[in-house]
């Protein structure tokens, strides 16, 4: 909401617009009330050196068809001549003359330099050149009779002013009008509040426009007052200036007064030409499906059964309820009698029509937030008072219609407010007698005695319905800055859950391994999952910003593959990324089967590198899984990948990304990959490792090399070796894997084992026996001991 300070000052002495400190005090008070000030804009500053001048005569120049030589008088008896390209001027017009040396708002300085060898003694100005508006079609001609040699600002009555741009939150419907803002501000600043108090003189014969509220739940009050003696013309200069400053284009006295009353009292209204109002009355009803109407903005719009229409007594639509009038019912220059509508529309219905049709207006913005259902009489009186300025013969007729339905909000809305509860919520030490002091000035009328008071909620604050709403008003007017600051104490301790701690440990392990964290977009293009070789259903965003970001990822893989491709394209090969994030596969429950996952991608690395990462993770965080190469996860390299199986459930995947997938993503390097379901992995809290005594006796080492068929996994052999080694085994490492080209289908695997007893030194006989045990066990697996 842009607030013109001089206008606001009509309802209280808030501050002189030319006094910067006073302006700042107003802005600070507005912000402290919750009307956050975004900007303060100085307006009405005039250009020094531009004065009023009378045109004496115009002279065409034979060599310059587009310009005229204009002779002017600024009242000092000297004749001056200027060149001018505008055609809207003639002799005796009073015009603004920028004299020599004037610096214009665009930075240009007026110089003597002329054309065709004849110099110029100034420049005539358009409205735009003087910052008076958009009009640059011609020279701004001033009213006849304007004194000469005056600064044009004085001639036009332009005063320096200030526009304060303040945010109005949804809970402040009253602040869509100047009076509402002034009421709040006056209470805060402690200045006298002077709302308009127009008296309505009803002296015309009875003329009634019958109103039928067909769908009263959507429009629960509709008043119509007949006013005759209207003479459509321009509105007063001061009103035009205020409306322009507020961002509204002056149109005619009737429309301008209508807008002015809306801005001042927050009561949108509409004047119909009574002579063209079909049947001389109104019907307010929901539209039929497909019914249409050309609205004031010239658009032919189609409506549905959710939209409310204002129709004439013949049921012909003439307006969209609370939003915009129809083009055909607009008043014209010939209008002499109007039916003035002031109505109240239900908030949510207006909002729905606005959302569905995209049709919104100054009126709909106000109705959507809730205007005062009982503000019409004042607004009608104010309308008449203001229109009388330009229509002295105005007559208000008796018999005004005031149709109401049972859905109209109550006028008297009392709530009980407990001072103890006020203090409990605010942390204050107020007494009940403080309530009227804080609340009465803003129309929350406090009555009663004792610790619980009755507060009558004002009708212009329909957002207020309960005790807590009143407590907020108390807080605002008491001042948030006066509320204390204390830190609540608690005997509970803060901390991270086991899962959160393990997540941090996991991240530390990965960072320590030289892998960086990525955070790609979780929204994918419709074909990305398929490109990644991932089958299955996915969830789709029904209102995506762009279709390329409309599918919820079911895997972290595509985003990371894209990150590798992106970095490759910037000559950064060997990218090592991990992501810890949510994936969202569909599910049959109330929500999708969302879970947290880890994916590690290592560009330029092969599958064993991913296994190494997995081993580092389990070494640090505990846990483990069977590496099942018979179950190759989708999208991964068929002979270099495995499912990580923890008990009966898959825990993740390890290996390399399939070559065709890499090609589809435009990745040229090999990419090793590890994926873990973190909902499972992080949830497990490993038992604390239990102490084992370190032996004081010497250890013996044994290196064993086996030839093993490619059909059997090293993991299996290791398990067998471990079992065969018995209780003295303290360490086992696979330290060599050699593939002899002459012996295809198998490889040699070298294990280094260390043995140690806690109660004695092991003898050669002991190690020989252990060796025989291992050999026997390995033979059963088809492994042949080579050394």
């Amino acid at each position, binding site marked *: 909401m842009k607030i013109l300070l001089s206008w606001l000052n009509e309802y209280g002495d808030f501050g002189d617009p030319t006094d910067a400190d006073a302006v700042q005090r107003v802005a600070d008070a507005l912000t402290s009330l919750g009307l956050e000030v975004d900007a303060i804009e100085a307006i009405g500053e005039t250009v020094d050196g531009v004065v009023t001048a009378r045109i004496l005569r115009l002279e065409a120049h034979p060599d310059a068809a587009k310009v005229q030589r204009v002779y002017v008088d600024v009242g000092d008896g000297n004749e001056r001549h200027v060149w001018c390209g505008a055609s809207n001027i003639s002799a005796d017009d009073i015009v603004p003359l920028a004299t020599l040396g004037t610096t214009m708002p665009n930075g240009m300085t007026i110089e003597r330099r002329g054309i065709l060898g004849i110099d110029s003694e100034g420049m005539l100005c358009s409205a735009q050149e003087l910052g008076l508006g958009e009009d640059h079609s011609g020279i701004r001609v001033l009213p006849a009779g304007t004194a000469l040699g005056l600064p044009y600002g004085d001639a036009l009555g332009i005063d320096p002013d200030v526009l304060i741009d303040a945010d109005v939150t949804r809970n402040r419907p009253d602040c869509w009008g100047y009076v509402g803002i002034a009421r709040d501000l006056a209470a805060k600043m402690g200045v006298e509040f002077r709302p308009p108090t127009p008296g309505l003189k009803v002296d015309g014969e009875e003329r009634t426009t019958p109103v039928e509220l067909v769908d009263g739940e959507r429009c629960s009050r509709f008043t119509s007052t007949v006013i005759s003696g209207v003479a459509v013309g321009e509105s007063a200069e001061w009103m035009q200036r205020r409306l322009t400053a507020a961002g509204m284009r002056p149109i005619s006295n009737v429309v301008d007064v209508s807008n002015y009353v809306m801005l001042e009292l927050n009561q949108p209204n509409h004047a119909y030409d009574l002579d063209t109002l079909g049947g001389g009355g109104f019907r307010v009803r929901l539209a039929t499906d497909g019914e249409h109407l050309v609205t004031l903005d010239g658009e032919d719009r189609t409506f549905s059964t959710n939209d409310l229409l204002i129709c004439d007594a013949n049921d012909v639509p003439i307006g969209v309820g609370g939003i915009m009038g129809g083009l055909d019912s607009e008043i014209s220059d010939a209008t002499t009698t109007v039916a003035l509508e002031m109505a109240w529309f239900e908030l949510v219905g207006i909002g729905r029509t606005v959302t569905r049709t995209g049709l919104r207006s100054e009126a709909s913005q106000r109705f959507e937030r809730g205007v005062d259902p009982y503000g019409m009489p004042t607004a009608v009186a104010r309308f008449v008072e203001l229109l009388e300025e330009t229509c002295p013969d105005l007559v208000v007729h008796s018999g005004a219609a005031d149709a109401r339905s049972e859905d109209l909000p109550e006028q008297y809305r009392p709530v009980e407010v407990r001072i103890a509860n006020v203090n409990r919520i605010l942390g204050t030490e107020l007494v009940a007698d403080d309530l009227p002091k804080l609340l009465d000035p803003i129309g929350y009328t406090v009555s009663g005695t004792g610790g619980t008071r009755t507060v009558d909620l004002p009708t212009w604050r329909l957002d207020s319905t309960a005790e807590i709403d009143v407590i907020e008003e108390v807080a605002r007017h008491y001042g948030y800055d006066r509320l204390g600051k204390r830190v*609540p104490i608690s005997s509970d301790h*803060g901390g991270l859950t086991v899962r959160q701690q393990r997540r941090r440990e996991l991240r530390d392990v990965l960072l320590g391994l030289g892998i960086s964290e990525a955070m790609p*977009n979780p929204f994918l293009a419709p074909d990305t999952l398929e490109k990644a070789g991932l089958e299955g259903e996915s969830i789709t965003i029904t209102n995506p910003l762009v279709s390329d970001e409309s599918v919820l990822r079911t895997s972290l893989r595509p985003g990371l593959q894209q990150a590798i491709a992106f970095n490759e394209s*910037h000559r950064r090969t060997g990218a090592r990324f991990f992501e810890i994030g949510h994936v969202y596969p569909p599910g*049959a429950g109330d*929500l999708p089967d*969302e879970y947290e996952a880890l994916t590690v991608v290592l560009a330029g690395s092969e599958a064993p590198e991913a296994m190494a990462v997995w081993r580092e993770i389990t070494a640090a965080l505990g846990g483990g899984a069977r590496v099942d190469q018979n179950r190759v996860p989708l999208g991964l390299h068929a002979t270099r990948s495995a499912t990580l199986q923890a008990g009966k459930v898959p825990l993740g995947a390890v290996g390399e990304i399939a070559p065709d997938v890499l090609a589809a993503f435009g990745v040229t390097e090999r990419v090793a990959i590890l994926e873990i379901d973190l909902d499972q992995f992080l949830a497990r809290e490993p038992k604390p490792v239990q102490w084992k005594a370190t032996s004081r006796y010497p250890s013996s080492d044994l290196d064993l090399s086996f030839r093993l068929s490619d059909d059997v996994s090293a993991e299996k052999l290791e398990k067998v070796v471990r079992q065969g080694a018995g209780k003295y085994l303290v360490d086992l490492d696979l330290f060599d894997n050699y593939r002899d080209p002459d012996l295809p289908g198998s490889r040699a695997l070298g294990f280094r084992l260390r043995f140690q007893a806690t109660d004695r030194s092991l003898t050669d006989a002991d190690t020989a026996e252990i060796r025989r045990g291992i050999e026997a066990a390995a033979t059963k697996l088809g492994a042949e001991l080579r050394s």
Partner: protein
Amino acid sequence: MISDITTARDAALADIAQADSPDAVAAMTTRYAGKKGELAGLKKQLGSLESIDAKKEAGAAINAAMAAIDAALERRRTAVAADAIRIQVEAERIDLTEYLGKPKRGHAHLVTQAWERLEDVFVGLGFRVAEGPEVETDWHNFEALNMPIGHPARGEWDTLFVDHVPPEGEAGTTVLRTHTSPVQIRTMLDEEPPIRIIAPGRVFRRDTPDATHMPVFHQIEGLVIDRDISMADLAGTIDAFTKAFFGKGWNSRLRPSYFPFTEPSAEFDIQRPDGSWIELGGSGMVHPNVLRAGGVDPEEWSGFAFGFGIDRMAIMRHGVADIREMFSDDLRFVEQF
């Protein structure tokens, strides 16, 4: 004989002084201090001397000479060993400023760095960390937060909807959460007060990306529910956080605002030591309707909530001019931090 002893001793000492390696010292030891050494030979000739006095005199001279030789050998041994270390050390000289390669550590995402710093400060203030799903029900995201269906404020969240349909629900009631406030509801439903949590997490809005906005971003919210929790507790907690996270010289203030799920509602601003203000987030006393939706009796308990963006903390700290960069996964960006 005495002169023989003196001659032998002097020759030995002169020789030992020349020994320049551990091996040479060992050879000298055998030659001069061993049983077959010269002085040992002279000792054997003592018997041939006539007088007792002469024997005594010569014997003492031999012993003294042997002691002098032993001492000289020991000195020489130490000196030679020290020389050897010195020579080795000298030969191993390197230039430590000749780096090969680059640091290999990985880089945590800037959002994670800010997220964990925030968690640490709030954990220090006694908060636990709560989490929840990113795809949410309309009820948790809006209705329980005092925004029933049709509530006009819903429009301000620019919600993304998904096509998941709950088994007994309707289409269009599953959303990508627009804030982490649903975690507050879930926590209230799961636990009895007192409650003191923060809920950091990923949130979504239907917002076109630009230098300061992303449709996918991160937010942290706090919720405290206890007996007699007041707005002063909110102001004090915000202030304690401000000083802990930004520094001792920083201040904070509350300013009236509007959110459907809190009342009274407040924006909170923080003030730099130089006096300038930054708008940080929203806050307020939890609305009684929200407490009721969470199964908490507003007559018995009261609480406050607050929330602000995590991503903004990251870009403010590091002076990142365009938030989109932070989510580019471009190594040239990632490796700067």
